[in-house]
């Protein structure tokens, strides 16, 4: 497998406080990789640095290109797309317009119609509400829209920040099913989650981030049976 994205020895700080320290991780092509960890471990900070919204030290390589001098927009154009925790939708614009804006970074927009149909097939709810303003959607629908909008950009690596946050269990299951199905599209995924069990069940490989440092990593099906992790994050059934 070829390497899609790698983070080497990356640190991110807010002023003097280092929220992420010397973190290294990598995502192979077609792989779903998850970073789990408690609230405040620095997961969101790490992703913000990966997309370029926060400055970081260390090295990041995406598809062989060093990202140091590539800004957020340049990373998006290369196929590195973030679905942020806050969704960042365009609240006053229609669902359809939100989705169409997903194609902004593409050079070739001849397939926009097909991408739109694909997203509507995947999330029929969005089709029903395509003329409605994004701000009027429910929490689950917003997450579907954020995911759909990112898919419109034909990402090579989709970075998802807490996709299940604040959603009802039924919708969480639907979102994770969607994430798992991205594998067949050839999209790699870097998934950050507090819902460690669901994340590890979906992912191929996992990292555990605690107070800004990676403390453990391994294949997801090994981590999910690790007694220490079960005690700390996974809980009983």
């Amino acid at each position: 497998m070829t390497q899609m994205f790698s983070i080497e020895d990356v640190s991110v700080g807010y002023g003097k406080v280092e929220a992420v320290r010397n973190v290294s991780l990598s995502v192979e092509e077609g792989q779903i990789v998850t970073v789990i960890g408690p609230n405040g471990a620095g997961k969101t900070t790490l992703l913000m640095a990966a997309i370029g919204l926060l400055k970081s030290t260390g090295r990041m390589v995406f598809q062989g290109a060093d990202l140091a001098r590539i800004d957020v927009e340049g990373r998006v154009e290369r196929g590195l797309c973030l679905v942020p925790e806050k969704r960042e939708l365009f609240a006053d614009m229609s669902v359809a317009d939100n989705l169409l804006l997903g194609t902004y970074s593409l050079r070739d927009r001849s397939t926009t119609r097909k991408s739109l149909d694909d997203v509507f097939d995947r999330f029929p709810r969005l089709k029903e509400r395509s003329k409605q303003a994004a701000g009027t959607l429910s929490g689950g629908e917003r997450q579907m829209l954020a995911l759909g909008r990112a898919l419109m950009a034909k990402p090579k690596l989709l970075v998802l920040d807490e996709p299940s946050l604040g959603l009802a269990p039924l919708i969480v299951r639907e979102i994770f099913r969607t994430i798992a199905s991205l594998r067949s599209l050839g999209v790699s995924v870097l998934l950050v989650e507090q819902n460690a069990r669901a994340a590890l069940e979906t992912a191929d490989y996992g990292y555990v981030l605690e107070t800004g440092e990676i403390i453990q990593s391994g294949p997801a099906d090994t981590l999910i049976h690790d007694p220490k992790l079960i005690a700390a994050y996974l809980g009983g059934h």
Partner: protein
Amino acid sequence: MTADIAAILAIDGIATGAVYALVAIGTVLIFTVTRVIFIPFGDIAAFTALTLAALDAKQLPGTVGLVVVLACMASAMEVVSLARAGEFRAVPKAVLGYLVLPLIVVGIVWLTMRFNPPMPVRIVLALLLIMPISPLLDRIVFRPIADASVLLLLTVSVALHFALVGLGLLFFGPEGVRTEPLTSMAIEIAGVHVSGQTVLILAAALVFSGLLFLFFDFTLIGKALRATALNRTGARLMGIRPARAGTIAYLLGSLMAGVSGILIAPVNTIFYDSGFLLGLKAFVGAIVGGMASYPGAALGAFGVGIIESFASFQSSTLKDVIVFSLLIPVLLWRSLASQHSEEEVEE
């Protein structure tokens, strides 16, 4: 005041309001996309009128010099900042955008002028020549402080206005101009005489604001501008560069201001510093719309125009005082009506 006079004043006010509306819409466009309250918009309108007058008189307009100077400054700044970032590969594109394109516009104007072009062509030339100014000013003045607070941006914007007035005196001289009327026809509506110029002003205001709405609704770039206005981070995550969206907003806004300058030039005598009041009144209109709503801004601008028209009949010396005093109750009403808006920003 008789009904006849009231009707004449109302028509006059609507025409003035339409001119303000174009500038107000441009002001809202720039503010929502870049967070800059672009005070020099009125100056852009006045410069367009002065440019057209120079073209009418078969002189090379001062705008040419202004554009060349600004283009050199902007491209120098862009090249230096790219060189500092080590991005030498982006230099040719920057030079093309900030230097070559404005110079091409200047060249077109310079060449076309030799053939004594007719009025419509002169208007297009004046608009072409005025459009690069605000995007270049944006690069020189606002891009380096793009992340500053709205208040700082406003302060710089006011300073920029005074600088532009000075440049206006330098490049256009102190003489006032009045361009030839675009039309001499007139019509009667219900016994009231309406000049063709008034009809033209209204039609132009409707056409240009209509075109802007079509642009927002039906083009991806238009949608990208709206998206940037609504949520900058979200827009960046779609690959929309705020700086680029800002440039497009400045170009469009300049077109609106330029059109209003051309419409007002045959009606009022325009000096190098006439833009300030025009811009300020359009700004009042935009504030009525909360600096966020285009219909609100247009409505506010029409309101300002009509009030000004009646106020100048009552007391022409106090008309500006009356117009600006009316801003106070509007501001009070707005601040009381929008107390909850800060929480909405979060989600």
